[in-house]
């Protein structure tokens, strides 16, 4: 079984794919900071950032619809925020939405958060879709993220799919024997499945540790430095960072 829900499309070829992951991570961070620090009004600055990001999306050859769908994950969170809006005060006139009143400034806050959150998540999605997960980890590591954290993430990446497979197999075995099952009964069975997947993973963990020790592991994972900055990486940075500053100057 193949799963691809982490870094789908990251094995394609495009100018963005071939950039050094560190360059992409730094660009993402500065993009998010720039977006967050930009005031909503007048809107042309955020519009500029939006266009900048969308042109990168086109450059990346990742299907834009896929990225847009993915970036929709922010909606529930921002939607949660919208619930509180009628209770925010503020000035600038108000609108009637059915029985509720929303002030103009509250609406602007909502729009502000929605737009910026969406831009940030879209940018993050672009990073993940253009960088294989392992290279992303290497990048984070050489940018100074703690070793333990990187190790944890890389084991997660390696074994997450295995655990999902195991769960799916169990689910199928259950379906095969008990296809008509009430809600409560079903929940009880799923609970058992989670427990047994946990136990299996725990035992697997022990075996993996043995396999590591058998190959000389003594507490610290050593990896090779594989990343190399090239001319195009520096070129990208020296173009992208000034572009981010552009709306501030004009």
């Amino acid at each position: 079984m193949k799963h691809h829900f982490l870094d789908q499309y990251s094995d394609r070829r495009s100018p963005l794919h071939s950039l050094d992951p560190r360059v992409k991570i730094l660009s993402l961070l500065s993009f998010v900071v720039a977006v967050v620090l930009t005031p909503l009004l007048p809107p042309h600055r955020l519009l500029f950032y939006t266009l900048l990001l969308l042109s990168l999306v086109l450059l990346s050859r990742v299907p834009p619809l896929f990225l847009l769908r993915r970036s929709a994950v922010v909606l529930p969170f921002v939607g949660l925020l919208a619930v509180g809006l009628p209770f925010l005060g503020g000035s600038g006139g108000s609108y009637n939405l059915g029985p509720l009143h929303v002030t103009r400034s509250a609406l602007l806050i909502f729009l502000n958060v929605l737009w910026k959150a969406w831009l940030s998540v879209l940018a993050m999605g672009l990073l993940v879709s253009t960088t294989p997960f392992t290279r992303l980890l290497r990048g984070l590591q050489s940018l100074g993220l703690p070793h333990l954290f990187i190790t944890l993430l890389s084991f997660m990446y390696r074994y997450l799919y295995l655990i999902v497979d195991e769960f799916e197999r169990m689910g199928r075995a259950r379906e095969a024997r008990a296809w008509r099952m009430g809600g409560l009964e079903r929940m009880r069975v799923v609970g058992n499945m989670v427990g047994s997947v946990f136990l299996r993973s725990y035992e697997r963990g022990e075996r993996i540790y043995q396999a590591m020790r058998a190959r000389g592991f003594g507490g610290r994972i050593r990896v090779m430095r594989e990343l190399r900055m090239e001319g195009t990486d520096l070129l990208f940075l020296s173009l992208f960072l000034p572009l981010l500053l552009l709306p501030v100057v004009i």
Partner: protein
Amino acid sequence: MRAVEIRGLHYTYPDGTVALRGVNLEVEEGESVYLMGPNGSGKSTLLLHLNGLLLPQRGEVRVFGRDTREGVEEIRRRVGLVFQDPDDQLFMPTVFEDVAFGPLHLGLGEREVRRRVREALRAVGAEGLGRRSPHHLSYGEKKRVAIATILSMEPQLLVLDEPTLGLDPWARREFLSLLERLKRGRTLVMAGHDLELMELCDRALLLRRGRVEREVDPEAWGK
């Protein structure tokens, strides 16, 4: 010098399961030995003793003349252990990193590590899989790469637990010829219940209830 010398080895797991009750075993250098026996006869437990992952509770285990209780560093350098389930053996995010894991932890330099990874992958016919994630390999590919992760450490004694288990007949045939090649110039200890694999070996021993019951003739078995 003998590659392996085991005398009166006993081992009981913490939960009370008695796995080994007085195993004696000798393996000469350059020899290939097949350990046969039903499930639960203690094969895997015995193999774990060969590079000091388990230490004898009673009796002694000597590998290349060294007692495993007196330090395992050198022994792990010379003994390569391939686990039964390749998903336990392959724990790094990419094949390359996995095959490089052993050499890197032996403290080798980058250039030497790359050379060894290349050669190990070639030896098992897995060139070109380096950048793949182990999860995206077929079962046969996983098994072969698992061997590469050990070959890259250039061990003198190669220990394989159920190497052909779960392979389809085609993958298995390839695998047998791979093992045939690996046998040359190395000491090989394998466990399982694959009769064809047994015929490939110089000697075969029957394990039962934690003891070596008797030696069997690999050629004459079942005839």
